[in-house]
């Protein structure tokens, strides 16, 4: 095995070990400013989610696509500058905080906060 390949192999192994050692899962969602439990329906017409990691327009599309699949969500609009995702509910819909958390989780980003007006 050439010196180049040896160095490359060592580099890869060290990277994997080092990263695994200090790795953690994605930043866990911090408690939001909402009094309701995750399972209970949100008593509001809309909610604002603070989402981290939306680094590009195409990335951000994953967030609103997932949120729009939540039953009772009428609209989702992303502000990439602040990470705010404004979610509007269908009148009378029973959307829970957990449904919103799950949608952001599936989108591949990190939910930092849920704000209810």
């Amino acid at each position: 095995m050439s010196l180049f390949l040896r160095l490359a192999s060592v580099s890869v192994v060290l990277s994997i070990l080092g990263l695994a050692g200090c790795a953690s899962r994605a930043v866990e969602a911090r408690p939001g400013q909402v009094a309701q439990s995750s399972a209970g329906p949100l008593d509001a017409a809309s909610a604002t989610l603070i989402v981290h990691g939306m680094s590009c327009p195409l990335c951000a599309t994953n967030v609103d696509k997932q949120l729009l699949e939540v039953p009772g969500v009428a609209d989702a609009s992303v502000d990439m500058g602040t990470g705010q995702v404004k979610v509007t509910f269908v009148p009378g819909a029973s959307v829970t905080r957990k449904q919103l958390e799950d949608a952001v989780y599936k989108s591949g980003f990190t939910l930092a906060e849920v704000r209810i007006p």
Partner: protein
Amino acid sequence: MRRPTLTAAALALGLLPAVALAQEATNTPAATQPSQGKWYVREKLQYMRLGDDPSPHDREIEEVVATTALTYGVSRELSATVTVPVVASWEEGHMGDEDRFGTFDSSLSLKWRPLQWDLSPVDSVRVAFFGGAELPTGTGDLSSHSLDPFVGTVFTAILGRHGINQSLQYKFNTGGDEFNMRPGDGPDDALRYDTAYLFRLAPEQYSADTTAATYLTFELNGLYETGGDNEVLIGPGILYEARTFALEASVGLPVIQDVDQRPETDFVLTLGFRFLF
């Protein structure tokens, strides 16, 4: 008349829908993937010219390759990709001229992204591992006629307007033609070492009105083959990314070329299209 026909066919294939995600340069992997249950298609249309063939064939080769990659988000951390390259090539050499049209070997792969730190609304650092195999599905001698597994890892960091991707990929070539003409597809194993830097030209700051972004990309795409060949291409490019699609263009020019077991790459031109659905 045959060449225009083949070129038109390859170009038509290049217009097929394709999947790609942001902050991913043209020829360097990134630790990005579609979200759970979503599809992403990416189409790359490449024109490349190869010359200085050391084999008795002394070939000069032109190729147009339309590569379609379809990716599905299995879960938040896992995605699956199938890649199908369609090729039209024209060879001139001492053994005569030969035109080909068909497919190279297709590949199946999985990408697992266990490490992710989303530091702010925009900033993110991620590490992914991927692996798969090239299957002997190619047409005639465009196939290696062997199952060639590969493994790799990629690191992605996006900090403000700057993005960097660093990838290493090792392919175990279990077959391959002694007189192979394509980089990385000969009888020797292949180590790809790729680096990409992306700079967001516009907008300078994201806002609620942002619907698209434009990036300058700069890549160093290296290929070391265990037979001793080593080649590095430098690749400036541009990437335009909207909410559901992206367009890209880049050129690859050799800056390091220590190749004596296959033809050398003269240059590579790439156009790409990505679509998320």
